[in-house]
């Protein structure tokens, strides 16, 4: 995270079906010196333009004409595991946001976030740093609670460590990484690692669930 090193501008793709909004985001990003390599108005366009554009970060609206943002996220991450997807959602529908994160999105912002918040979020996800809102942290906490309450869950399934739960709880209570680091007397980097591994476990659990679903339905036998 050496800020003094001159690095090439972040390559960003903006996917949103509202032209006004897409233009505003594009202008903000370009104005801040980021490289907007592609825009798309729907899922199909997004999937078609993604391979050639090779963005490092995708700023993605979840509610776009089919395929929706969740499917697009899953496909992007499948094609390029290094891509970072930052979800922007107007409605903040909990189920959708959680599904997008499970599909591989690494950040989430409500659309009313300010220009500065958006830029910070794009820069942070570009560095591989997950952008959690307190609301998203609450959802993820609830999801892990649900997993551990399910009686048939097997020991191989990913669980959060006590420390990870603690950190996630603090994120959900609105504490910044810096505040968390101070309170737990750990480094800022360690806090980031905990949050990152939480997301990783959630995505892994999603894959385990999908695989088990496939096996139960006999989809793997052909």
């Amino acid at each position, binding site marked *: 995270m050496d800020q003094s090193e001159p690095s090439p501008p972040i390559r960003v793709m903006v996917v949103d079906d*509202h032209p006004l909004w897409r233009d*505003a985001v594009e202008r903000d990003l370009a104005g801040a010196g980021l490289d907007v390599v592609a825009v798309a108005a729907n899922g199909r366009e997004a999937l078609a333009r993604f391979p050639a554009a090779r963005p490092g970060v995708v700023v993605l609206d979840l509610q776009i004409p089919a395929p929706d943002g969740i499917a697009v996220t899953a496909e992007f991450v499948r094609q390029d595991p290094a891509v970072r997807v930052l979800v922007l959602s107007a409605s903040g*529908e909990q189920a959708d946001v959680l599904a997008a994160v499970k599909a591989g999105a690494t950040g989430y912002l*409500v659309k*009313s976030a300010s*220009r500065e918040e958006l830029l910070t979020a794009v820069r942070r996800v570009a560095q591989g740093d997950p952008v959690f809102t307190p609301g998203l942290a609450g959802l993820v*906490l609830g999801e892990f609670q*649900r997993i551990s309450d399910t009686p048939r869950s097997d020991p191989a399934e990913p669980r959060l460590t006590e420390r990870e739960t603690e950190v996630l709880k603090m994120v959900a*209570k*609105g504490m910044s990484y810096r505040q968390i680091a101070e309170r737990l007397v750990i480094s800022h980097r360690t806090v980031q690692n905990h949050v990152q591994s939480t997301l990783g476990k959630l995505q892994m659990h999603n894959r385990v669930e999908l695989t088990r679903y496939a096996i139960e339905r006999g989809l793997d036998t052909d």
Partner: protein
Amino acid sequence: MESRLFGALAVVRVVVLLDAVVVTIVRAGSLPHPAASVACAVVMTAWTGFATWAYVQPRRRTFLLLAADLALALALLLVTPLVKGADFRATVPSYWIVGALIAWAIHFRWVGGFGAGVLLATVDLVQRQHLQQSDYGNAFLLVLAGSIVGFLCESLQRMAAERDVAERAAAMAAERARLARVVHDGVLQVLALVQRRGRELGGEAAELGRLAGDQERELRRLIQAQDTVVIETGMVDVAAQLAVLERRQGVTVSTPGFPVELPAATAHELVAAARACLDNVRVHVGEDSPAWVLLQAHPDRVELSVRDDGPGIPSGRLEEAAAAGRLGVSESIRGRITDLGGTAELVTGSFGTEWEFVVPRSAPTNL
């Protein structure tokens, strides 16, 4: 549905036919008119084949077909004394007649099953010279089986119809919700944009932006509340109730993605306690200062925390107030939670002030 039942009946018909044919062949030697018996078996076989084909298509299931089905069964019963002698024990068609009986039960419900049962039983009984206990029992079973099968068919049909209605209603509700989402999303997009641009332009536009922001929060809260449904009476989703608190400027509410059901009274007290904490934030930290509410649901308890980013409560102030006999806000908050059988903990420091409530999910018994 009826087609499935007739499909099953086709199998039954073959089984009872085999039974009748095998009996005829085995007994052929001891029968007074073997040729007539074989002829009857041939008729039954032919009709079984025809009936299996005929009942496949719903449009072929006419009254004529069912009447012919039953008439043939009755006719075979009637010829029994001629074929097997007046003192016969088993009738010529034997169990084969249940094919017609069940067909009537399926198609004309319990009335059909009962009617066909009575007819078959009567014809069977009146021809016998010596009525035995088992003959009466068989006749009784015919009537009973016809009625019951008919009744069950009717129930099945009704349940299928009800299920269709429920499925259609659910599909319509889901479609309505989807449309609402699309509309809401569009409105939210615009509100968010106005808010964002307004903030950047400043001045009067900033005021417009702020108003848009209020409406945006309100609409988002409504959408989240709409997704939660009250399932059991007396239980409410405390997550949805807490979401209302986001209406206040600066407040963020985080909850699990699923409804958290609590007895209505408990939920009410929890929300009231959270609201009191937020009021306190306004007084001690400032209007519009940020605050965060987090709800966590465990199987046996819920945990609710309210945190602000303020300077914290100076040490000793709470004790001073208590010593002076003033029951401060913090004591009233604590009281609410302990009344619910829970615990309230207050942590304060440079990181702000944080309340943490732990409340059991079952209703307190001592109240």
